[in-house]
């Protein structure tokens, strides 16, 4: 017959042993709550690479990188690689990666980064959301009004087929800010010079606004627009920093590296359950870079305040 002390000892030792095993299992087992991210790049492209660098600078743990190399079709191997990794979130850099993820990996939530006009690509739904490349008209007008203090009338030339919706939106927003938008529609680049001459002849405009319209903005027409803006001492507000470098007054462009950082922030918020993709509207870039050409400002007799100059990311002197 066993003594009570021996029974207790045997039971206790077994319980203790099991407890140690459980504790060890918990300590050594992988963190079952760490979320994994599949980062898909559309192709090797400097702006995309900047965004990826910004993303990885803040979110480097549990991120597996993939590259479509510009080809979304026939990528079954890549699809298999990604799905076998069972990511909790896909971060898609660029249009191609976003569309690829939506079509081939739609079971996995996708956060896109650096997509212009996402609705045009039908990147909407419960399982997809992200950060666009678009800068709101409000923001643009607000910045330009801070540079050109008496900005009341803005002239713009556009192709209705390409940028009609932007102009429509701009008309509405400008009116709310007390700015009149005077427009001329064209259908070919050859119409740009007569359109600008008509705009200047018929109406007094305070600035010329370039929207990203490839009918209107060509190497030939840009020279004409630029030279005419000089002749009439008109602030020429461009669609990209590359134009400011060669003489336009100013431009606003998203900060690509910061877009990556912004993407990381959203990815963390999603994986921690703080936000859901379904509840996200199209998110605009947080950081916008202002480029100013002070030499142009002097040439057209425009004085820009030091406060505004200090906010500029790029200043050409």
């Amino acid at each position, binding site marked *: 017959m066993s003594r009570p002390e021996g029974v207790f000892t045997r039971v206790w030792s077994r319980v203790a042993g099991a407890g140690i095993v459980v504790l060890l299992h918990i300590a050594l087992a992988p963190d079952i709550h760490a979320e994994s991210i599949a980062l898909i790049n559309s192709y090797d492209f400097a*702006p995309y690479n900047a965004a990826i660098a910004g993303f990885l600078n803040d979110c480097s743990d549990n991120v597996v990188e993939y590259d479509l190399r510009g080809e979304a079709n026939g990528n079954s191997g890549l699809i298999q690689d990604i799905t076998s990794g069972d990511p909790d979130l896909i971060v898609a850099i*660029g249009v*191609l990666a976003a569309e690829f993820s939506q079509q081939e990996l739609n079971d996995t939530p996708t956060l896109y980064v650096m997509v212009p006009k996402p609705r045009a690509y039908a990147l909407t739904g419960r399982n997809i959301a992200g950060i666009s490349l678009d800068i709101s008209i409000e923001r643009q007008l607000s910045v330009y009004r801070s540079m050109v203090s008496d900005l009341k009338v803005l002239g713009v030339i556009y192709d209705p087929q390409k940028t009609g919706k932007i102009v429509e939106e701009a008309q509405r927003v400008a009116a709310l800010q007390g700015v009149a938008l005077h427009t001329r529609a064209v259908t070919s680049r050859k119409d740009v010079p007569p359109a600008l001459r008509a705009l200047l002849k018929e109406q007094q405009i305070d600035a010329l606004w370039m929207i990203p319209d490839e009918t209107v903005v060509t*190497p030939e027409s840009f020279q004409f627009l630029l030279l005419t803006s000089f002749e009439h001492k008109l602030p020429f507000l461009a669609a990209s920093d*590359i*134009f400011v470098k060669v003489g336009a007054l100013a431009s606003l462009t998203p900060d690509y590296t910061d877009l990556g950082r912004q993407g990381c922030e959203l990815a963390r918020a999603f994986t921690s359950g703080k936000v859901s993709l379904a509840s996200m509207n199209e998110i605009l870039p947080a950081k916008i870079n202002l480029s100013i050409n002070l030499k142009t400002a002097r040439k057209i007799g425009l004085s820009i305040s030091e406060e505004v100059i200090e906010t500029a990311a790029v200043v050409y002197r």
Partner: protein
Amino acid sequence: MLYSNPRFAAVVAALMFSCNAQADKLNTLIPGLYGGDGITLAGVEGGPFPSHAPHFLVATEDTFNRLNDTISAQVGAIPFASSGAGFAFRYDEDLGTFMQIAKSFGPVYAERADTIGEGRFNTMLSFTGFEYDEFLGQDLGSLEVSTLHEPETLPPDDQRTLFELDTVDVNMDLNIRINALVFAGTYGVTDRLDIGFLVPFADVDVAVTARAEVFKHPDNPIPVDVHTFDGGPESPNDSASGSARGLGDVLLRAKYHMLKGEGNNLATVVQIKTDTGDEKDFLGTGDKTVRALMIYSRTFGSFTPHLNLGYEVNLDDSKQNSVEYAAGFDVGAQKWTLAMSVLGSREINGDGIADTIVNGSVGIKWNPFGNYILTANVLMPLNDDGLRSDVISTLALERNF
């Protein structure tokens, strides 16, 4: 030994023995050697031979001006201001905005179809330096020409016999160095039309050393040496040197970009060369010319092949009218461009000297900052016609406004 090329001998000797010497000008240096009237040896008196002062001359002189043109011709071979890279961009669908396109800076000596753009201005300052090394494939450091005895000493007058067969062979060391500082400008009148000018300032140095030696012809049966410098009026050695600096031949031109597009591009250039440079000092060719050139180029990303074909009319000497051509490419990105071309010209009714000139050009263009472009180029002969330099080096600095 003797250099028996009759063309070469005629040209060089004609330089030596021209009778129209003008001591102040470079083109009189070589003709002025040995007094400028041929080589006269010690007089022959008494004995079985007629008394005479042996006088040696070249057979013809009319190639003299061709060499003069050839010396100054390279002063005009200065690269014109390139059209530069210009500002090129494209709409990027994936970014929804415009991206700048890397475009090469264009060739150095040849042309591509691009113009610089309306209202734009390009200026260039360049330095070209070279020394002539060869004439008709012969080293200028050791030129040889054989001068002939006057045939009238012994009958018959139109034929050389006995001691008249002897020659005086002259070995010359000829140094011709040219440096040219060039200022050029191009203005874009419209997006398709450029006008431009080029003003060269040249610095020319010529130095020649000559050593003459009597050669007794093997068919001269006379056992004694009839001909000698000893006791004669001239030394077998002579030398001359001089330099000149001044304005070269000014160029004016217009370029029109006829066919402009993403693919094939065609342009035409009309270039007028004036005669503002003093030809007597080898600062200019002495001729006015008009050149018309058709240019084809096509860009494949950063690679642009080009083809030039043209005709140059010499308004002062139609025999020097020539076909001009060039083929090559330039390749590069925003900061660097490598340009290579083969350039040639062919005189349609030439006189056999410097009729066909073919050169190879290799150059690099670099954009160190802003709108500046620095160019380094070498031009090398690919054939040996005419008066040539082994390497013609050019350094240029351009700025686009």
